[in-house]
């Protein structure tokens, strides 16, 4: 982890409270912030800050990105969704300077967080009180809409995440 420390030291100071998402494939930090809903509005509201470290040297990945979110704990469920797209990620929650590791895992079912790409799906119907639901087909790296059966590759998830 020397390289990472070096990267952090160079660019961003240590955080006391927040989340560090590490081992993100190189130049994918922006996708991570999008999937996690770390947009301006959310960050302003929470008085949180986001730092994206890109093209950091890594023994495991060669080059990688790191996202640090100060004063914001990413939801475990959101980290699990991120894991669909980037299985290499690791998540550290920092509270009063203490670090707790979280290993994201691919969920069996995903409720509400992903919009079905099929516009004619009932889960996209206006005014119907329906929450999207996807079943994970792990071996095929695909999600399947529980309502209309439409398939969605893991790699396409970022385009369909609800923020």
């Amino acid at each position: 982890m020397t390289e990472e420390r070096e990267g952090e030291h160079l660019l961003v100071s240590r955080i006391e409270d927040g989340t560090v998402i590490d081992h993100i494939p190189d130049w994918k930090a922006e996708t991570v912030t999008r999937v996690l809903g770390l947009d301006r509005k959310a960050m302003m509201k929470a008085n949180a800050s986001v730092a994206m470290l890109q093209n950091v040297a890594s023994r495991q990945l060669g080059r990688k990105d790191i996202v640090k979110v100060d004063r914001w704990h990413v939801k475990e469920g959101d980290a699990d969704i991120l894991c669909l797209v980037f299985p290499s990620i690791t998540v550290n929650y920092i509270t009063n300077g203490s670090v707790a590791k979280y290993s994201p895992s691919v969920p069996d079912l995903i409720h509400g967080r992903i919009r079905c790409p099929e516009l004619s799906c009932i889960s996209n119907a206006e005014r119907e009180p329906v929450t999207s639901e996807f079943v994970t087909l792990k071996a095929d790296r695909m999600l399947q809409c529980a309502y209309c059966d439409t398939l969605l590759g893991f790699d396409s998830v970022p385009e369909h995440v609800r923020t």
Partner: protein
Amino acid sequence: MMGSSGFTGRDVISARDFSRVDFERIFKLVDGLEAAPGSMDGVLGGKLAALLFFEPSTRTYSSFQIAAERLGMKVTGFAGPTGSSVTKGETLHDTVRMFEGYGADVFIIRHPKMGAARFAAEITDTPVVSAGDGSREHPTQAMLDLHAIRKAFGKVDGLKVGMLGDLRYGRTSSSLAYALSNFDVEMTFIAPDSLQMRSEVSHFLSRRGVKPKVETALKNVVGSLDVLYVTRIQKERIPDPTEFEKVKGLYEVNLETLRDAKPTLKVMHPLPRVDELSTEVDETDHAHYFVQAAGGLPLRMVILNLVLGGAS
């Protein structure tokens, strides 16, 4: 008398949810009903069927209505959005809840949105029978299609079935493909690339070890088929009008296109037809679509009776 355990209270949402054993049981009951047409009359007296058709329908609505009435049920609901509270913007959710309050014993639902039947089944504990949800599925149509195939050939196994036309947006073809995957059938999907079967259907079939052939022109395969299942290509599905004119002819079924067909080929169609199936085929031995359509009534009587746990 066959019991109805395993079916009572069951939703009929996808042809995928039914096994070969289920289909064979249904067909045996339909055979029995066809042999003794009045044998189920009135068996569900006192029950209420709510037919909620959020999309206009003639034959499916009528066949469900007649089926329910023949079984002795009372029928309520609507045959299309016009004139119903749906035009005022009432949701599927609220409509189901309302008819549940009125004491519906079964919901028969057609809706333009894919997955609507599954959503309805989540809203209520009352059984939901899908009468078609968007481009997704039409499970009872697949059951009657399969029954019609069995009737024509005395079996389903070993047959070569071609599905022609708009396989992407046609809900009947996806349900039929799911249903046929329970049998030893060689399927061929004949459609332009843009209207080929949706990926989720192919994915399901592949997981079952079923590998349908894919063709773009009927003439390449017509001579090998036992069943040709024709569906309509809708002009609005093809963005380029010149492309539509080009493909239209390739998927038209008439005496000329059937010239190389086996004499025993059965042509099927979920109806209504427009130009894709010429009336000149009606007088040939190939025409099986009216027999197919007639099977809808006994099939739906059997399904309603099974779902409602009636004596059979």
